[in-house]
């Protein structure tokens, strides 16, 4: 598995991170090193082993269906980059 700068740019776009050609070049080198490290895993036979997502074998606890939250819009929108009439403003969303 070898990565190209095109791959790096595609991944960066998927992650919504702007990346210049020179940055992509430098990033490629470092990512290739890291992926080389990761590649060690492929030597292990993991047939039949159940993937482990959590360290404790416990199941999801459920919340009672109760409204516990009150309106905190003012407080929360104090830290917002742009709002108007209680709405968060973003550049136009086109479908």
């Amino acid at each position, binding site marked *: 598995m070898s990565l190209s700068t095109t791959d790096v740019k595609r991944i960066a776009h998927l992650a919504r991170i702007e990346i210049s050609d020179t940055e992509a070049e430098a990033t490629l080198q470092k990512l290739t090193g890291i992926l080389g490290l990761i590649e060690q895993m492929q030597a292990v036979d993991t047939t039949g082993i159940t993937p482990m997502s959590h360290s404790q074998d*416990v*199941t*999801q606890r*459920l919340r009672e269906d109760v*409204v516990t*939250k009150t309106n905190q819009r003012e407080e929360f929108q104090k830290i917002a980059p742009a709002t*108007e009439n*209680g709405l*968060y*403003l973003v550049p136009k969303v086109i479908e």
Partner: protein
Amino acid sequence: MEWEVVIGLETHTQLRTKSKIFSGASTTYGAEPNTQACEVSIALPGVLPVLNKEAVKCAIKFGLAVNAEIAPRSVFARKNYFYPDLPKGYQISQYELPVVGKGSLTIQVGDTEKTIRITRAHLEEDAGKSVHGAQEGMSGIDLNRAGTPLLEIVTEPDMRSAAEAVAYAKKLHELVQWIGICDGNMQEGSFRCDVNVSVRPKGSDKLGTRREIKNLNSFKFMQQAIEYETRWQIETLEDGGKIEQATVLFNPDTGETRSMRSKEEANDYRYFPDPDLLPLEITEVDKSAVEAEMPELPQAMVARFVSDYKLSAYDADTLTSSRAIADYFEATVKAFGGEPKLAANWVMGSVAAKLNEEDKDISASPVSSTQLAGLLKRIADNTISNKIAREVFDAMWAGEGEADAIIEKKGLKQVTDSGAIEAIIDEVLAANVAMVEEFKAGKEKAFNALVGQCMKASKGKANPAQVNEVLKKKLG
């Protein structure tokens, strides 16, 4: 060439919980923007999801209602994509292990019954909304809806016409309201359908390339959209074109579908199990507890109406089109105590017509089931004829009181006294000699005309059966 359309549906059903699926924020519709967007809804750094018990219960109810497998262990996954109405940059959904597995729903199209296979149903959170026209070149984001619980119900591509798709959607819409998991309000977006449409030469067993019509929130639009889309696909293929997989939107103003702005890259949602949530376990005990709370399902009720009330399958189906109608009907039958078919005719006839005329729900009917039963009793004991009963019913609808009081006040009691009836008949025979002659000459129709005259002379109050009988004797 003859073409066949193949349709599958994905329905987003908003679950009727008080609070959101992963937080204690309210789900009430129509609040001021972002006043129901708590720290979890707006995805502040550090916040975590905790699953709402009621949402899980709704999923189990649905699973039981469509005879589906309910997963003893299901897993929440993150669906990653960037969109301003998706605050975390991922939607918590279920991917590989959904809570509800394979099930089915039977629909009726014309005279034929068809079983639509349900592939799966999974729990997920709704996104917020983009509001346009805030500032020039800007959109406003309202996150009140973000985190509202959804059950996404997915079918196999089992439908072969717009009519079938609509019948399925209607049936599902009925069912989710019946079991009380969704308010069914399509205007408010509580029930939204994505429809996958593809066409193929009739007889082929290969599926064509599908296009997905997003977010249909009315059955009428669904019908129109599928019909348009089907035509468009067939025309495209017949013109030698190719169908590209796409997501399209339906424009009700033009009646056309159009492709959404083409995505710059193919979607790559990078699903993986959400590490903030643990596997959801549903035991047999949990299932039984929900089962005990389940209302009788429409299908079981239809069967019971047919066997207990001797109704036709058609009548039983109509009366179970909603739980409110079924409950009204059963309450009427119970209070009435007479022939259930009579009650069925009235509920499906006059009651339904009036409701329709006034665009009212049965829960808003001015004539209650007990009042209707009061009227039916008077029909059954021959106090009034069916025709007079309709007049009484209209008066009841207008709020003039109980059936008995109206009959009394208006003097509508049926004439059953044989002497009185004979007197009326004699009068009519004397006044219609020509008709009598015609009858005697073999014109059967004249008899009915004479009955009509008698009824008219009695202002409709004479018992028609009695009139028939006496008239026959007299002419005999």
